[in-house]
C-alpha cells in the first residue's frame, strides 16, 4: 500500500470516531445545551461495545447497546441540566468523570484482550477497484457510510430544510421566543441532548469495535474533548462537523504512518499532533478572519438554562 492510500484509509477510519461524536454534540448544542460529558460517554460506549461482543459476537449489537447506554446516561444528564437546570459545565465534567471511572472499573476484566467481534471492511464491487480512493473509501466497514453520509445528510436536511429543524434552532437561539410560539422547549432540549449522548457513546463503540479494536484504560484519550472543540471549529454545522472529523482523522493518520515508517520524530510528539492541531484550528481562524466570528457564532442561548418565569 503506498503512502497516500495508507494515509487516507487510516484517516477515514480514525475520523469516524470524531465525526460521530461531533455530530452528536452539534445536536445538543444546537438546542442550547453544552454537553461536556462526551469524553465520558465515549468511554462508556467503548466498554459497552466490548462487553457486549464478548457475550454475543455481533459488532452491530455492540454498537446498538452502546447507543442505548449513551441514551440512558444522556437522559440522566438531561434530567439534571434541562429539567432541574443545574450548571451544564459542572454536570458535563461530572459525567466525564463518572464515565471514565465506571468504564475503567468495568473494563479491567476486558483489558488487553482483542475485541471478540469487530466491524470488518467490505469491498464494494467495482468501486473498490478505483486506485487510492477505492481502498480508502469503498473498502471500509459499513458504519463509515452511516457516519459520513447517511446521518449527517439526514441531520442536515432536518435541521435546515424542515419546520421541525427551524423550531430546533429557535430553541437554541431564543428559547423564550420559541416557548411563546408554542414550541416545547424542555422536550426538544431533553430529546436532542439524549440523542446526542447516544451518538457520543456510539462513537466510543466504533472506536473499540472498528478502529483500535479492543479495550484498554484511557483508550478514548481526549477524543471526546477534541470532538467538542470540532463543533466550534465547524461553526455548529452537522456536515462541517463530520468533515472536520475527517480532517482530524487525517492528522491522527499522519502520526500513525509516521510511527510505522520510522520518521525521525519521537512517537510522543506525533501523538501530540491532534491536540495541538485542535488548538490551532479553533484559535487561528478567529484571529485571521474577523468575519469568521459572526459566521461561526454559537447558538445565542448556548449554555443558558431557560426559566419560563424569568424573562
Amino acid at each position, binding site marked *: 500500500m503506498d503512502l497516500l492510500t495508507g494515509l487516507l484509509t487510516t484517516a477515514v477510519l480514525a475520523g469516524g470516531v470524531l465525526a460521530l461524536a461531533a455530530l452528536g454534540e452539534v445536536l445538543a448544542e444546537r438546542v442550547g445545551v453544552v454537553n461536556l460529558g462526551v469524553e465520558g460517554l465515549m468511554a462508556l460506549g467503548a466498554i459497552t461495545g466490548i462487553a457486549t461482543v464478548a457475550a454475543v459476537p455481533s459488532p452491530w449489537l455492540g454498537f446498538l447497546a452502546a447507543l442505548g447506554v449513551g441514551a440512558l446516561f444522556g437522559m440522566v444528564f438531561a434530567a439534571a441540566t434541562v429539567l432541574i437546570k443545574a450548571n451544564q459545565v459542572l454536570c458535563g465534567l*461530572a459525567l466525564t468523570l463518572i464515565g471514565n471511572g465506571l468504564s475503567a472499573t468495568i473494563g479491567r476484566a476486558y483489558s488487553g484482550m482483542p475485541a471478540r467481534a469487530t466491524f470488518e471492511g467490505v469491498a464494494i464491487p467495482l468501486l473498490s477497484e478505483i486506485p487510492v480512493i477505492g481502498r480508502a473509501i469503498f473498502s471500509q466497514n459499513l458504519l463509515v457510510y452511516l457516519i459520513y453520509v447517511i446521518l449527517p445528510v439526514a441531520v442536515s436536511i432536518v435541521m435546515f430544510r424542515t419546520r421541525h429543524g427551524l423550531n430546533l434552532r429557535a430553541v437554541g437561539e431564543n428559547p423564550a421566543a420559541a416557548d411563546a410560539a408554542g414550541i416545547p422547549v424542555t422536550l426538544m432540549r431533553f430529546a436532542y441532548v439524549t440523542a446526542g449522548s447516544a451518538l457520543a457513546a456510539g462513537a466510543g463503540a466504533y472506536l473499540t469495535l472498528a478502529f483500535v479494536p479492543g479495550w484498554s*484504560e484511557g483508550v478514548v484519550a481526549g477524543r471526546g474533548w477534541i470532538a467538542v472543540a470540532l463543533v466550534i471549529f465547524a461553526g455548529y454545522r452537522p456536515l462541517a462537523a463530520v468533515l472536520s472529523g475527517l480532517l482530524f482523522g487525517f492528522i491522527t493518520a499522519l502520526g500513525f504512518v509516521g510511527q510505522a515508517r520510522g520518521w525521525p520524530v519521537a512517537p510522543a510528539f506525533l501523538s501530540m499532533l491532534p491536540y495541538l492541531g485542535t488548538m490551532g484550528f479553533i484559535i487561528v481562524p*478567529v484571529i485571521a478572519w474577523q468575519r469568521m466570528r459572526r459566521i461561526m457564532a454559537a447558538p445565542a442561548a448556548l449554555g443558558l438554562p431557560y426559566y419560563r418565569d424569568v424573562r
Partner: protein
Amino acid sequence: MGPYRLQRFPSAAPGIALLARLGAIVLALLISALVLALTGAKPGALALQVVTASFGSQFGLEDLGLLVTPLIFTGLSVALALKIGAWNIGAEGQFYAGAFAASAVGLFLPVAEPLSLFLMLLAGLVGGALWILIPTLARAYAEVNELITTLLMNFVAVLGVYYVSTGPWRAKGANSTTARIPAEIPEFFGSLHWGLPAAVLLALLLALALARSRFGYEVRLAGSNPQAALYAGLPARRRLIAVMLAAGALAGLGGMVEVAGTVHRLQGGLSNSYGYLGIMVAVLARGSLVGVVFSAALMAFILNAGIILQTQGLTTSTVLAVTGLILFLTAIGDELAHYRLVRDARA
C-alpha cells in the same frame, strides 16, 4: 395548590446552599456504598478500614497531608480563575509543566541547596504560567473558549513529561523516571514537608489580597459583572490575563512542590489527576479561597480511600467515578438551593 409554593430566587441562601452541598456528598457516598454492596462488597467494613487507615496512625495522617498539598495548589488555581469567570480545566497540564520546569532546574543547574530550591520554585511558577499562556491570550484577544484550550494542553503536557522521563532524562537502570533531584523541601512531621503549611498560608494570603486590595476588587467585579466592569472603565482584559497566568503559575507551583517535596523525581504518573480533582476542590469551595483548604482535605480523604481500597479490588478509577457523582449531585444541589417555600399570594 396549598398556601405555600416553591419559588426560585436569583441567589441561594448560604445556609441552604451549604446544606445542599453536604447532602450531595452524603448522598453520593451512600449511592456508591449501595453499588458496592450490590457487587458483593461490605461497605461498612470498607468504610471502617478507610477511617482507621487514614486517621488511626501517623502514617495515615502523613499520607493524607501529602495528598492535600497538591490539591490545595490546583484547587486554588481553578478557584482563582473562576473569580474572573474563566474555567481553568488545564491545572493538570500546568501542574506537569511546573514539575517539568522545576525538575529541569533541579537536575541540571549546579547550584547549592537553598538557592536551587528557590530557582526551582521560580521555574515551577513560570512553567505553569507559560502552559496557560496561549489559552489566555486566545481568550483575551479572540474570545476563544478557554475551557477547551486549557484542557487540550493537558494531553500535550502529559505526553511531553512521559517523553522526557522515558527518553532523554531517564535515569540509568530506571524504566520511566528521572534521577533523584538533589534539592528537597525539608520535612517537619514524618514525611510531611513544608509544602503543606506553605499551601495553607498561600490560600489565606490570596484570599486576603483578593478581599482587600483594589486589584482584587477589580477582579471580582470583572468576574461577576463584566458589563459593569467595562462601563466602569476597568482594564478587564489586562486583569483577565493577569489572573489566568497567576492561576497557571499556582498549578505549576503545585507541580514543583510535588517533585521537590514528595516524589523527588519527574515521572509519567506524577499527578494522581490532581489537576482534574482541583476542579472539584474549587467547585466544592464555592468560590472561597480559604474554603479550598477544607475541600482539598475532603478530596484528599476520598482519594486516599481509593488508594487504601486498592487492596480490596477497587481502583483509583472507581474513586474518580465517585468524585464525579459528588460533583453531579453538588451541581444539582446548588440549583435546588435557589428554591424557597413562599406563601402563595393567590391562595
